[in-house]
């Protein structure tokens, strides 16, 4: 029993790292731009399909392929922001972005469906089933490397946000967009780059997701609801919060699965509701990050 529990916790932490990677993009986009990017789930799947194609067609290892997919997703993100999101105005802007990104997601999903069909696929390089033997536990290398990459990229986003000049202007916009514009920050440019970075990390998240799960064009919907829960729980706009919340939630789900596989997801969402009632700003959010 204790052994199963430990295994479940370890799995939960490792998978949680991957979810954190996908959620960091969402929380960044939300925190800076006040945008709910419903397309994030589909973008993760797009990232997974990019890695899948590079691996199957060009025989490029998914990890090396990241050197191609991350810049590609960055460009896609900047393009989406430039074409659609930067054009929205008015008092209902946040709700409008939700709908616009939903429409963008529909289009991307339709294209993926057209190109790849409805069958589930999985990125399966030769080492997919090999696992490390640590202290009597078997842990898949895919999960370990996924976790390492996730933590490295989340760390990179953290450094970008808190240790660079660019990050300072991002945080200035988070605090007060009008004041940031007054002191000479090019809000539009920073917003576009932030959206690009938020989408770029989905390339890595999607790659690991595609190695550990079978997916098709529809898989984005289940993902986006989980990712939204994670960023709300972590406190919107908080990078560390997203990591903490992702690890917490996925560990919880993984542990509950031991006893009750069918209800594990319900426990996940019920935990979210309970925690939010207790702390409306999320587990790690400061109350004043954004007005509730």
């Amino acid at each position, binding site marked *: 029993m204790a052994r199963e529990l430990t295994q479940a916790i370890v799995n939960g932490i490792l998978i949680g790292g991957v979810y954190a990677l996908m959620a960091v993009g969402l929380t960044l986009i939300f925190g800076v731009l006040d945008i709910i990017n419903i397309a994030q789930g589909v973008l993760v799947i797009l990232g997974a399909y990019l890695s899948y194609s590079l691996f199957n067609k060009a025989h490029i290892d998914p990890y090396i392929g990241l050197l191609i997919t991350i810049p590609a997703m960055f460009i896609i993100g900047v393009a989406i922001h430039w074409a659609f999101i*930067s054009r929205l105005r008015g008092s209902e*802007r946040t*709700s409008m972005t939700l*709908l616009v990104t939903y*429409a963008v*997601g*529909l289009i991307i*999903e339709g294209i993926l469906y057209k190109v790849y069909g409805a069958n589930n696929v999985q990125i399966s390089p030769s080492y997919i089933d090999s696992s490390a033997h640590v202290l009597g536990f078997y842990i898949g290398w895919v999960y370990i490397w996924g976790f390492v990459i996730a933590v490295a990229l989340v760390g990179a986003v953290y450094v970008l946000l808190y240790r660079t000049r660019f990050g300072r202007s991002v945080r200035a916009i988070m605090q007060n967009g009008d004041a940031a514009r007054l002191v000479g920050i090019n809000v539009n440019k920073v917003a576009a780059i932030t959206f690009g970075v938020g989408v770029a990390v989905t390339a890595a998240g999607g790659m690991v997701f595609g190695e550990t799960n079978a997916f098709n064009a529809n898989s984005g919907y289940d993902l986006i609801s989980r990712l939204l829960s994670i960023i709300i729980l972590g406190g919107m706009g908080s990078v560390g919060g997203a990591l903490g919340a992702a690890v917490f939630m996925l560990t919880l789900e993984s542990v509950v699965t031991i006893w009750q596989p069918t209800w594990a997801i319900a426990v996940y*969402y019920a935990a979210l509701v309970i925690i939010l009632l207790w702390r409306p700003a999320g587990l790690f959010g400061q109350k004043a990050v954004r007005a509730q």
Partner: protein
Amino acid sequence: MKAQTLAKSGGLVVLLVFAVLFPQVFSNPSVTNYGVLALVFATAAVGWHIFSGNTGYIALGQAVFFGSGAYAMGIAARDWHMQATAVFELLPLSAVTGALIAIPFGLIALRVRRHTFIVVTIAIFFIFQLMAFNFWFTGGSSGLGSPFLSWAPVPYNRNFYYIALACAVGAIVIAWLVGRSRFGLQLRAIRDDEDRARGLGVKAMQVKMAAYMISGTITALIGGVWFYYLNQVQPQTGFNPLFDLTLVLMIFFGGYGSIAGSVLGALIIEPLSLWLNTIPALNGFNEIVLGAILLLVLLFMPRGILPTGAEFITKIRTRGRPAVVPATTIGAAPSATPSAPSVSSGGAR
């Protein structure tokens, strides 16, 4: 002003007559099918408008009521062995189920605002979908079937059309009554500034709760109609995440915050997406086409086609005269700094 009111009510009468005559003129079941489903969504959209359109709380969990209404009817018909038209007597049960579910749902979700509210409604929605999958009395993933109705295709669709039309008209009347009452004014005060409304003596929680229950009742009722029309419900069709997003999209498409806009959006988008599905040349592309149409409307008529259209007509009629901008449009007009997104808009509420 008097003439305008007269013209308006005249227009409504013409619309109603058209709606009533529609299945008589087009009796083809594949055409009336569009009518039935469009009216189902129009009713649900008005239900959404009563709560979310008035209060500004964007609810993405309406499928909870829709699915619960459908399941309540299906379970009751099965367990009480009801047959044929007697099943319609269960519609009030569906409606009451919606109202009852709205109470705990509202007590949880209405304590938080804005984005947290949106996500809480999504979370509760997924809990309901999972319950429909896993409870012993819901029929699992294969869902529920309804009793058999021995109507021929033409009267079948026509009868359901009139039932759906009655629901839609009822919902519109309720929404209209809510909108012009003191209650509706309190709801809109909450939308504008909840804390200030509270300070002025609006019992915010009670008012929101009442609106949420009305909204849930209407949505669950039409969910029951929808279930009996299609003769079946599965967890992923009754509790469909796309239902929520489509509903919100319809309303923003037609015109957020107005009854006519909500109805219009539903009456356009639902037949449009059904029709796109039937075109063989678009096979596999219909999702892309639908997404593209929505994007174009959202980008070029960001306030919905109804307000934008009305503005356009006003512009033509007042051409050459000094422009008179209606007071309601000032707030939504492009701001003085069009070069950058208004990031600060989030902090105001």
